[in-house]
C-alpha cells in the first residue's frame, strides 16, 4: 500500500535509465547517508571547517542556480518557493527545517533542523567531533541567499545536536553578540 509520503515521492522524483531527476528537471545522485557522513567527515578532518563550509556553500550555489533556472523560481511567489523547498529538502534527505524567525527587510533568520540523516549518522559515528553540519550549513546558507534573497547569508551555528541539543540551530544576524564566522 502506498502512503501519502510515497505519493508525494512519486510526484517529486523520477528515475529513468540510471538517473534520478527531481521534479523532472534537476539531476541528482542518491548516496547512502552513512557513507556520505564518512566522506564529509574525512574532508572536514583533512582540510578544516572553513574549507568544508565553503565547499558546501559553493555546491549549494550550483544547485540554487539550477533550481532558479529549471524550476522557474523567478516567477514563483516566496510562499510557494518556501513550501516547495521545505518539502523537497525533506524528501531529499536534507532534514526537516523549521523557520523560527524570518525577517527579510533586516536580513535576519533563525532556523532549526532535525531529521537530517547524514548529520544523524555523523553524530552516531563521530560524536562531538562530527563536522557534517558545517558542510550542510554552507549548503543551506547558499540556498537562503540565492533563492530567498537574504543578502549574503552565512549561517552561524548556535545549537548543535552533536553537543546534546535537540536540533541544530542556525542563525544569521539574529544574535547580535555572536561573531559572524564562516567556520564553526
Amino acid at each position, binding site marked *: 500500500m502506498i502512503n501519502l*509520503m510515497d505519493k508525494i*515521492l512519486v510526484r517529486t522524483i523520477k528515475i529513468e535509465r540510471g538517473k534520478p531527476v527531481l521534479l523532472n528537471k534537476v539531476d541528482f545522485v542518491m*548516496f547512502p547517508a552513512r557513507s556520505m557522513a564518512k566522506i564529509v567527515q574525512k574532508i572536514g578532518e583533512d582540510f578544516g571547517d572553513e574549507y568544508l563550509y565553503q565547499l558546501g556553500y559553493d555546491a549549494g550555489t550550483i544547485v540554487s542556480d539550477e533550481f532558479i533556472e529549471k524550476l522557474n523560481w523567478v516567477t514563483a511567489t516566496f510562499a510557494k518557493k518556501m513550501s516547495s523547498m521545505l518539502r523537497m529538502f525533506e524528501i531529499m534527505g536534507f532534514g526537516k527545517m523549521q523557520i523560527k524567525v524570518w525577517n527579510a527587510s533586516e536580513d535576519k533568520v533563525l532556523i532549526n533542523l532535525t531529521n537530517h540523516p547524514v548529520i544523524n549518522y555523523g553524530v552516531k559515528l563521530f560524536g562531538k567531533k562530527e563536522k557534517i553540519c558545517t558542510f550542510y550549513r554552507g549548503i543551506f546558507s547558499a540556498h537562503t541567499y540565492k533563492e530567498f534573497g537574504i543578502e549574503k547569508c552565512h549561517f552561524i551555528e548556535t545549537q548543535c545536536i552533536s553537543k546534546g541539543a535537540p536540533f541544530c540551530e542556525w542563525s544569521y544576524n539574529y544574535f547580535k553578540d555572536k561573531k559572524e564566522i564562516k567556520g564553526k
Partner: protein
Amino acid sequence: MINELISKNIITSTNKNYLEIFKGIEISMYGSKAWAFTIQQLGLKKNKDYIYELGYIMGEDSAKQIQEIFKKIKYFLPKKIQSITNLIEIMGFGVVEIKKYTPNQEIIIEIKENQSIIYGEELYKENSLVPEFYAGVYSGFVNIFLEFKKCRLKTIIKNKIITLEYKK
C-alpha cells in the same frame, strides 16, 4: 519506474519523511552537477588518489550496507548480482554493464549515463576527476560484492564511455 520501485518496497519514504532503500538504507540526495564540482575542487586541492580514496570509502561502505540488507532478506547470489546492478542504476551511479568477469582475477565494467561524470566532462573536459571518484566507488563494490582481494580499478575513457578495468 518510481511507482514500481515503491510498490516493490525498493524505495520507500521513512517515518521521518526521507528516502530509504530496501527499508534500511537511508538516503541523502546531492545534485549531480554540484557533485562534479565538489569532486573537482577536492581533487585540485589534493590529488587524484585522494578522490579515488573518497570514492572507495563511499563504495565500500555502501556495499556493506546493501550486503547487510540482503543478508536480512535472504537473497541468493544470482538474484543478488542482478539486484545490485539495478540498485546502482537507481541510485544514479550509472548504467552498469559487466563486460568481463573472472572471479578474483579480472573484471571489466562499462558505465554509461552517470550524470556526475557527464557534468564533469562538460565542465572540465579531459581534466575531469569525477571518473576517478567512481573508479573508487566501483572498486569498493567489486571488493565487497564479488569478494576480490584489493581490486583497484583503472579508468579508461574512450568515446564518452567510461570503462573500469582490473587484472590481477
